[in-house]
């Protein structure tokens, strides 16, 4: 279980997160929606401390970090309980697909190379890249790179995988293959928090939808509630603006 309490974050005078409280149950797939600048990516990055929250408390599987005065060791432990899939994939460019997945296993989890190789090959097989083990990122398409990124996150067997707009940098024709992989692992009961602009996907895969705007959570609930009968005016506006194509008249 993941529990965020009173998470706030400011960049200079600009308050990006204004005391966020969020609880995520084990096995839940959470989709965070919202307009750009609403703080959703910042919130996600705060969870594994790539962004340093100014205040609040992060608790993952009974392990709690107080963001007022975090110890370096605690941040390190927190990061080991999470994994992240990045918008820009962020693969290690000097390593092959297989080595990218192995890296965390060997360096952080201290597996032997043999064990790590076996596990990594299985995971790459699972994301449909069984034939690309020895390819470097520069030889892979965006969709393939992102699937390596997902395998790299899965390998760590984390409490939660954080997805930061995993399909935003992809060519439209490659989005499908990545969403299919995420959908597949969602069914396996891994806890996931996904920041996304893919409304259809969020509606389909998530079982907990969070709508953020202006650094606060405006509304949260099941996808059915949020998408079909949102209570807040701001949520209605947002959804109306992005969902139906028929709403545009040219």
């Amino acid at each position, binding site marked *: 279980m993941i529990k965020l309490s009173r998470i706030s974050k400011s960049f200079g005078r600009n308050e990006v997160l204004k005391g966020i409280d969020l609880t995520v149950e084990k096995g839940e797939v959470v989709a965070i929606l919202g307009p750009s600048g609403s703080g959703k990516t910042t919130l996600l990055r705060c969870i594994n401390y790539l962004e340093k929250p100014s205040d609040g408390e992060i608790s993952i599987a009974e392990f709690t970090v107080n963001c007022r005065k975090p110890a370096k060791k605690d941040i390190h432990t927190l990061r080991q309980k999470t*994994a992240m899939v990045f918008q820009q994939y962020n693969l290690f460019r000097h390593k092959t697909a297989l080595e990218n997945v192995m890296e965390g296993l060997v360096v952080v989890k201290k597996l032997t190379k043999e064990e790590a190789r076996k596990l990594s090959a299985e995971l790459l097989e699972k994301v449909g890249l069984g034939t690309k083990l020895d390819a470097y990122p520069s030889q892979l398409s965006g969709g393939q790179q992102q699937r390596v990124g997902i395998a790299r996150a899965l390998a760590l067997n984390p409490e939660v995988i954080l997805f930061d707009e995993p399909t935003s940098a992809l060519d439209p024709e490659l989005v499908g293959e990545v969403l299919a992989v995420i959908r597949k692992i969602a069914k396996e009961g891994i806890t996931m928090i996904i920041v996304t602009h893919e409304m259809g996907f969020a509606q389909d895969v998530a079982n907990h939808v969070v709508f953020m705007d202006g650094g606060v959570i405006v509304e949260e609930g099941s996808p059915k509630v949020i998408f079909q009968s949102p209570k807040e005016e701001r949520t209605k506006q947002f959804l109306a603006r992005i969902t139906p194509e028929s709403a545009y008249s040219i």
Partner: protein
Amino acid sequence: MGAQFDITAVFEYFVKLLPFIKISLLIVAGSIVVGLGVGFLVALPRLYRIPVLQRISQVYASFFRGTPILIQLFLFYYGLPELLKTVHIDVSRVPVLYFVILTYGLHSAAYISEGIRAAVTTVDRGQIEAGYAVGMTGFQAFTRIVFPQALAVAIPILGNLIIATLKDTSLAFTLGVMELTAKSQSLGQLSRHFIESYIALAAIYFILSFLLEKVFFALERRLLRHESRSETAERVSLGKKWLKRRLETKVAWTKGGTGI
């Protein structure tokens, strides 16, 4: 005026100069070792933006890049002993070669520090974050992710610097170090075949530089193998290879990353 031109003298001097290559190479090797060590130390404050030290690093780099190496040699050889005398350290018995290596070392450190800084900043921040995200410590992320990639970027810079230093060692003769240039001058003075000795000298510098260039090019290709898109492009004629080199650098710069 010198004696009449004699082509056989060129070959004769060429062979006579060969043993002195090792003095020149010793200066190069020594100064690069010093340069890498000092250069790394000088680069660190600027990479981590440490307030006062950062400023000192900048002044250091500006001084060594902004004054001629010849003047630096004089300053260190004649000036440093005087300076040390005031604190009662006597360095008058230290061989001149040490001063030469020290000066070239500190000189190249200025360039190396700039190179390190440039190379490290080319590795995009996203990969470091990815390293943290898989649970690496800062040190692990640096040694396993940043360093190998920065090295590949730094190799051509280092190659240029080593070749430049090799040619700069010709100035060490002004302090009386018996290296290639000094030897070739004395050969010329003995026989009055000046031109021949300088031709032989130029040939030796050229051959050394050429070999170094080849070595570094091969090294660069090996370290950047992850950025080459196709394996088949390896088998092309020499001329095309050169064209491809430029292309490859382009690929390396523009691919991936967070779009900086």
